[in-house]
């Protein structure tokens, strides 16, 4: 699909109408969904109405913003008033939110066309979108493989051109890891930059909403539209939002010396050799662009994973206590008292991974264990943050692979939760420290699967992160490679 700027140009020059663009997106969704299953709910009529409103504005000679008429996908853990929001869970299969999230309100105010709600691991818990209660999403590059997760539907939809850009949420890598596995740009902003009002809570000290896009500029435009203070989210930061787009330049030579640090610990065992080679080539490219490259050690980086899998399930066990079959959602029929109703409804409504994390979190927070687990993990967070702080005294940007491997086969890790957790090794420390980071495509492995590079900056340096990513992107042509979606099955592709 064309970029936001291309579509915007077509709209203002009246080469195409917003209704035509929306219709094209909806047709493509209809055609590809049987193969991909990126969406849980498509808002056909609503999208066309929104597009008609944009066309009316253009016809009336009114100015339109960059996002007006742009088809956007929304991860299905972000509430929209009157639109089913399931979080990929059976427990919310009949839930229709009575209120609108701040991010979707902002996008609609900007004239964006919200085409559908995208698939995810149930309550954003997972790294493959296989934990959805409504079936898995396929990776557009190889449908036998996973798109990553938890925002796998948003990543696959953008990669396949079902929408121009999409929103996801990132608690431990849920935007960056699927962006990497699907070959698109995905960004997790600084904790507090984007309002979470209307985002269904998973782990509140880590959750953040962010953009998926086919190119860096589109990600910058979408981020600019959703960022900013919101009185409805008490963790939201009161800061000025820069114009991220205007700051993008195809190189960083004229700037003062840009220092990039390669995180030593991420190039150890467990890293796929092709991923290592592609990321190293990309780092050389950054050097050619004028960056000074240093090797940086973050010795406590690897402790991020165990710390995260204590903190996130602990917070989840508290957040998910609200699914009690009283105010909304499904209720198990055959209960004979209140406690029994809770237990049976939750047994029926939650999938295995969600139950596993609720159990883990409940245990970690139970009497006598809080200090040993949750408090210990929060202290380890401080140590990881200190590692980043001292790294950022020496460099401006950190770089590492986004994911230790390219997209893995569906079913490969579903029986071994710990091996699934390990796919978030590179992304998790960033959430623990609350930093912004993005994943950008940096090549393909021998099987044609995308590889992603992760760039990390200090808090609130999204501008610099986007500038570096943009300069890299403009010096390569990875963004122009698209998955072949004309072939129905992999067998046919091979023969």
């Amino acid at each position: 699909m064309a970029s936001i700027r291309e579509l915007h140009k077509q709209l203002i020059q009246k080469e195409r109408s917003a209704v035509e663009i929306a219709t094209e997106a909806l047709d493509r969704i209809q055609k590809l969904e049987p193969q991909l299953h990126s969406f849980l709910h498509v808002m056909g009529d609503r999208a066309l109405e929104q597009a008609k409103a944009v066309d009316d504005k253009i016809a009336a000679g009114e100015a339109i913003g960059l996002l007006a008429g742009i088809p956007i996908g929304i991860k299905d853990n972000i509430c929209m008033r009157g639109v089913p929001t399931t979080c990929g869970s059976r427990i919310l299969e009949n839930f229709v939110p009575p209120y609108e999230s701040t991010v979707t309100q902002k996008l609609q105010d900007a004239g964006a066309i919200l085409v559908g709600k995208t698939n995810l691991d149930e309550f954003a818990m997972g790294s493959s979108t296989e934990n959805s209660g409504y079936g898995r999403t396929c990776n557009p590059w190889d449908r036998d493989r996973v798109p990553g997760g938890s925002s796998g539907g948003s990543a696959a939809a953008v990669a396949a051109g079902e929408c121009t850009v999409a929103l996801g949420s990132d608690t431990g890598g849920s935007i960056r890891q699927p962006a990497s596995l699907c070959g698109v740009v995905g960004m997790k902003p600084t904790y507090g930059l984007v309002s979470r009002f209307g985002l269904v809570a998973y782990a509140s000290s880590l959750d953040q909403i962010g953009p998926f896009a086919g190119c860096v500029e589109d990600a910058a435009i979408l981020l600019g539209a959703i960022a900013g203070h919101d009185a409805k989210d008490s963790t939201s930061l009161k800061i000025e939002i820069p114009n991220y787009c205007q700051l993008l330049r195809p190189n960083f030579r004229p700037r003062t010396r840009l220092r990039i640090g390669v995180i030593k610990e991420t190039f150890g065992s467990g890293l796929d050799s092709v991923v290592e080679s592609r990321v190293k080539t990309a780092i050389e490219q950054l050097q050619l662009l004028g960056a000074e490259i240093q090797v940086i050690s973050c010795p406590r980086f690897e402790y991020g994973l165990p710390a995260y899998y204590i903190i996130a399930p602990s917070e989840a066990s508290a957040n998910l206590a609200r699914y009690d079959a009283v105010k909304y959602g499904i209720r198990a029929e055959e209960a004979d008292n209140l406690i029994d109703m809770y237990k049976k409804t939750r047994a029926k409504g939650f999938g295995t991974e969600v139950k596993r994390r609720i159990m883990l979190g409940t245990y970690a927070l139970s009497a006598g264990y809080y200090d040993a687990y949750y408090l210990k993990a929060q202290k380890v967070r401080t140590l990881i943050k200190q590692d980043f702080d001292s790294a950022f005294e020496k460099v401006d940007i950190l770089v590492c692979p986004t994911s230790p491997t390219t997209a893995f086969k569906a079913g490969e890790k579903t029986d071994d939760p710990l091996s699934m957790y390990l796919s978030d090794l590179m992304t998790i420390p960033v959430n623990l420290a609350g930093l912004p980071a993005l994943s950008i495509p940096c090549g393909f492995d021998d099987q044609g699967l995308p590889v992603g590079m992760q760039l990390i900056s200090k808090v609130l340096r999204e501008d610099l992160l986007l500038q570096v990513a943009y300069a890299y992107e403009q010096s390569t042509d990875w963004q122009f490679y698209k998955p072949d979606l004309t072939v129905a099955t992999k067998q046919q592709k091979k023969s």
Partner: protein
Amino acid sequence: MLDREQVQKVAHLARLELTEAEEESFTRQLSSILDYFEQLSELDTTDIQPTTRAIETSNVTRQDVLDPSLAQEEMLTAAPDRSDRFFQVPQIMSD
């Protein structure tokens, strides 16, 4: 390590009814995950303050101004069961 009895206790605290098979697999899987967490004890965290967020903020306040809240009828419509203006649930106390 976690035994089956502890798994049953935690499931009760979490208000989850587990099947026999789930009890068995969670006992095994949660034990191995807890073993994995043990590596955190390698780190000395004496005198280290816990972190909860990237940028500390505190005492977020706002003007105490009334805003319309969501419509009661709309809230009740979403409920699995209701009685007049109330959410309805199975019996809580015995007769």
